[in-house]
């Protein structure tokens, strides 16, 4: 078991290097970092430009350029952003913290509700509530996050204040302008709508996974054995049914990180929420190579990490799986 985990982890490092190399090439071709630097800093001196090229590894061909960028990256000698020459790490850190808060809240709400209604639907397949859950899941999948965001904004922010005089949930930011310091109530109010938007997607996906997984389990032989042993229905469902049905769901959950991050990017942008999504799109719009590369490294690393976790959790949770 331990050796399996070790071997898989060892593979992750060359993969990370390879993928970041590809991202480096794609970004260098796509954003044209030198031209966007000149565009944002038209009066930059020759030495400034040379320094910028050196720090980002832009002077030479792709391979040597990548390695000189990598050297600066791992030694924390990060170049400053193109626009405004800001430090990258403090900005990135804040963005990730904000996104993580939103992402964890949405995932927690989404997964618990999704699993709950998935179980609820699987108990009576083909019944009324099964059909209802199925329909809700379908609508959830078919409504893209930007549309549910717009409709929620329209109802709760714009029309609510028209009908009832006060706006229930604000539509943008983490705090109202001028607020400094921590305020839990305000924060929750600001996070409510974006959380719901991301959670809708999660609920739609997980209720379907859970339903089909639990149906498979409920039809298996050991369920009959458990019943013939005289266990209570609730105990059968929880100990033998749900527990086994969760194995594939957890694996899929770990692989779904990309979808959740993608949903976050869209949602944050509509709600003007200062997370990685806003960070990415504004940096991408400016062709800001120094801001983009660290974010991409973190995205790639987290995708690989969660892939790894999926593999390992699958092996740990299901003793029927033989490794090697």
């Amino acid at each position, binding site marked *: 078991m331990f050796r399996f985990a070790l071997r898989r982890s060892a593979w992750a490092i060359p993969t990370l290097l390879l993928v970041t190399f590809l991202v480096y090439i794609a970004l260098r071709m*796509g954003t044209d970092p030198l031209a966007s630097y000149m565009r944002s800093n038209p009066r930059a001196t020759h030495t400034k430009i040379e320094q910028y090229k050196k720090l980002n590894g832009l002077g030479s061909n792709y391979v040597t350029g990548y390695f000189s960028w990598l050297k600066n990256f791992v030694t924390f000698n990060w170049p400053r952003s193109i626009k405004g020459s800001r430090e990258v790490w403090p900005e990135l850190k804040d963005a990730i913290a904000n996104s993580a808060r939103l992402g964890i809240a949405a995932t927690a709400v989404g997964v618990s509700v999704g699993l709950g209604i998935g179980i609820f639907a699987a108990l009576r397949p083909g019944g009324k509530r099964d059909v209802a859950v199925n329909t809700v899941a379908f609508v959830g999948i078919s409504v893209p996050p930007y549309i549910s965001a717009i409709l929620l904004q329209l109802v709760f922010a*714009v029309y609510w204040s028209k009908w009832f005089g006060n706006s229930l949930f604000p539509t943008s930011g983490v705090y109202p302008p001028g607020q400094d310091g921590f305020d839990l109530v305000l924060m929750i109010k600001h996070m409510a709508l974006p959380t719901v938007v991301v959670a809708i997607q999660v609920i739609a996906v997980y209720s379907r996974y859970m339903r089909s997984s639990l149906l498979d389990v409920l039809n298996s032989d050991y369920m009959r054995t458990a019943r013939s042993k005289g266990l209570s229905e609730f105990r059968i469902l929880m100990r033998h049914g749900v527990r086994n049905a969760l194995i594939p769901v957890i694996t899929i959950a770990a692989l779904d990180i990309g979808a959740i991050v993608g949903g976050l990017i869209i949602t944050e942008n509509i709600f003007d929420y200062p997370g990685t999504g806003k960070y990415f799109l504004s940096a991408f719009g400016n062709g800001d190579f120094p801001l983009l590369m660290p974010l991409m490294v973190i995205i790639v690393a987290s995708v690989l990490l969660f892939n790894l976790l999926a593999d390992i959790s699958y092996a740990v949770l299901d003793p029927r799986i033989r490794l090697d």
Partner: protein
Amino acid sequence: MQFLIRGFVLIDEPLVSLSPRQMAWRRFAGHKAALICTAILSFLVLAVIVSPLTARYGVNQSVKAPPNSYLPPSKLAWLGTDDIGRDLYSRLIYGTRVSLLIGLFSAFISVFVGCVVGAVAGFRGGRFDDVVMRITDLFLAFPFLVALLVVRNMFGSIKWLTYIIGDVSSLRFIIFLLSFFGWMGVARIVRGQVLALKEREFIEAARASGASRAYIIKRHLLPNSIGPIMVALTFSVVGAISGEATLSFFGYGPQPGAGATSLGLLVGQAKGAVQTGFWWIALFPCLVLVVISLCINFIGDALRDATDPRMDAGK
């Protein structure tokens, strides 16, 4: 009239034999929601095909002389007008046409490429299979929008490629870009299907009688996976339409020439309309997009149920 004995009960019904396709069709027809969705979708597609007849104004035509911006829905403009007084209803029809075109073309390309790659990977196995599936996994796990934007700019910067697939804002480019990401999901489905089929006796028989690999794939493996492929096709169409809409929403979509529009562009205008309270600008394009993807999703789901032979159990 033949009598059939099931168990001990005499059943008074003639014995009809159905081909797999007929059986699939019967199951599909039994799915009420899917039938309704098919009807709605065909109606939409028809209305969009004959768009010069169904649209009341031209794409760029204003409904009347100014002041004509942001008129609420009325007899003059059924779904209201936009910022420069153009009829939203007519623009929706033209926009849906562009979006469906993008969706269908890139879905067909994705499915074609996905079938070839998936079948070859599943049938040959080995190194090729490993590499293709690793790439597919990685791309599928990556946040879609990030990958889409980065690759879009990369393709746009390659000079010789833009001669073939057009500029970043052309329809051809968007179709190419969406197909570039679309084939992977299909390849994975087809590969799984081929892996299950290739151990079956009839493939062994074909191989024993000297059929070549390409022949087996073409004549046996792909026709036997037609159900999952059809399902993948429907989901590819939805994926491409919403991909285009997402790109357009953030301003990286196609700019169809001469003031033409697409669903994504129309939905993108909704973003600004929320704060000002012009609800029709936000509501109707979103509604059309949701109805289209909901219908195609339902049809895809019914197709999956209809073509999956396991569904026969217990019936």
